[in-house]
């Protein structure tokens, strides 16, 4: 049993931010994508507290090909942070070599060595005219960077989870996040080759 469990591809993800950013919705969209689109198992634990009034809040998602026995995330493989408090609170739990995604305008990744994937998600959302969609932009970015869920499943889940009438807008936001992810990876690849300019 134990052996099978170890072999099961499994990812633990913590998404943090502050109340009102749609952190929990992002977690739910992620879980739904894994289950409905990619036919895997997934759990979601949301933690509210004083957070619900604008403080730190988090969503803990596990995605696995086998059964999940314990839904709480203790050492995430991936940490997504959309607020400084959230980052500070959870960064210590990150698995060694884990992946960190941040909203670069809201989070200073202090005390962290290794790669951080930054995106100005809130700023892009503001440019699109909807600050509320920062979570969907972040989710698009997340999908490209981590490949934790497939592209198709992710997009379907976004469209199926947002309020009726806002599908197109959210799709656009998701695409923006994806585009940014692709551009960022390309940018790093180019820099690694020493080809920063034109």
């Amino acid at each position, binding site marked *: 049993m134990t052996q099978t469990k170890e072999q099961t591809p499994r990812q633990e993800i913590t998404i943090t931010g502050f109340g009102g950013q749609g952190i929990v919705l992002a977690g739910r969209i992620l879980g739904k994508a894994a289950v409905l689109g990619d036919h895997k198992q997934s759990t979601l634990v949301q933690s509210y507290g004083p957070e619900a009034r604008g403080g730190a809040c988090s969503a803990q998602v596990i995605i696995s090909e086998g059964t999940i026995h314990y839904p709480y995330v203790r050492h995430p493989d991936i940490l997504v942070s959309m607020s400084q408090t959230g980052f500070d609170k959870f960064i210590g739990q990150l698995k060694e070599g884990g992946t960190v995604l941040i909203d670069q305008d809201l989070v200073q990744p202090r005390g962290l060595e290794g790669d951080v994937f930054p995106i*100005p998600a809130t700023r892009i959302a503001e440019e699109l005219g909807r600050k509320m969609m920062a979570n969907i932009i972040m989710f698009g970015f997340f999908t490209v960077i981590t490949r934790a869920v497939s592209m198709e499943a992710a997009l379907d889940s976004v469209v199926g989870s947002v309020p009726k009438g806002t599908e197109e807008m959210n799709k656009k936001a998701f695409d923006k996040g994806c585009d940014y992810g692709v551009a960022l990876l390309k*940018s790093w690849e180019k820099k690694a080759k020493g080809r920063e300019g*034109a």
Partner: protein
Amino acid sequence: MKNGHGDTTDFSIIFFLCSWGPHAAFQALQDSATQIPSEIKMVRIPCSGRISKALLFKPFEMGADGVALAGCETGTCRYGTGTSTAEKNVEHTRAMLNLLGLGENRLHLKTFMPEDSEGLLQFLGGFCDEIKDMGKSPVVPSPEAKAPSEGVELTKEVVAAHDIYACQDCGKCSSACPLTLVGKPFSPRAIASNIISGNVDSAEVKKDVWSCLACGLCYDRCPSAVNFPEFIKDMRHILKEGGSRDYLAHGGFFQSLMRTMTQKELRVNHWDWLPADIEQDTESKTMFFGGCAPYFDIFFSGFLGVRTSDILVDSLRLLNFFDISPLLLQSERCCGHDLLWSGDKENFLKLARLNVDAIQESGVEELITACPECYRTFTHDYPTEGVKVNFKVTHIFDLLEDEISKGAVGFKPFDRRMTFQDPCRLSRLENRSELPRKLIDRLKPVEFREMQDRAGGAICCGNSAWTGCDSYSKALQVKRIRQAQSTGSDLLVTACPKCQIHLQCAMEDPFLGEELEMDIMDLTSILAKTINWE
């Protein structure tokens, strides 16, 4: 000259012969009844330096297989600088022949002393052999101008088509026209009313039709929406068909060059000069269409020192930056813009079809261009004139704006104060003045300041389609450069190779001289120099 295809013995070589030294040598041959090769058609001229690039090139347009220019040896020129001028003209025209795929060796310059008749004979014989080795020129001359057509009838149609009758005689056009405003005795209202009342044949109208810049400022202001540029375009066509003279800049060199490009058999080498590090891909579904900048640079190399092909190189670098390796069409020809706007619809259509056929054959889905004239011509004039385009045409600014807005791209600080000259084709005719400004906003110059007349209301660079350039064009350019200077900028940013050429031309003014000097740089070049991955 007639079409010599299939007839390999019928060669034509035009021999421009200076009246002084070389002519004496030639005469000695004639006096001794020496046999001069029959292919040689001699044209006696006063000085080799007077044979401009337009004249050196014209025989090729007319189907000549070779051209030789004979002058006096350097130092023996009766006019001082004739031979050195001839050297430059020949050098540039030879470079042009290479790009065109005709080959530089079809044109030679040679100098002779009066007593050197033996050398002259040898040269002519050798040149004939060389030309025969190269074979006949693939250029088939255009048919002679047709018999004058019914200009008045046609004019009525054009007047109706563009609704010139709607003119209320209000004069708003003339109060907006940049030519009228610099003091030229020229008024769009007067042209309109003259033509409506049937005075097409007046010398005044015939000349004014060629002066208009087709800049569209008057159309912008006209309460009756009289589309002056389109009207002028058609009027030039009618006048030309009717056999009346045109007014072309640079002796009609560019129109001549473009007409020559209508030959299907020509093996054009449009991209041979490109730096080796540019990545291209013959399988790509995206093509980059460069336009005539390489020809412009050769033509003006001795004079303005413009480098408009940098725009093409920098565009390609920007595409490569975004991992786009485009297909480049070696047989690319002029889009035909200038022929269309100088009354030669027939040859415009030939170019349009050659380009569209070649592009479609290459299987590309999208065509990118950095030239506002090519952009306008492909998107608007090809379809309007009945040439269907089944690929997408994109201005490079649109593509760049799209790619940059995906993110992770920034710009290095740019240590200049800049202002911007709008290209009329993009900013006014296509109504896209916001597009270059979006990109300018992303740059990090010390300062960006707009000129007094800007965007859709900007003033022309002084000439369009190489027609009707005169001292008023110059006055207009001087006015424009002063506007640019008064913004306190030290860099004039352009987005069209011709704006760069014409404005720089004004800066060569011998009287105003340094007072007008200002650095000019194309927007694509600034983007390419400062863009970087973040």
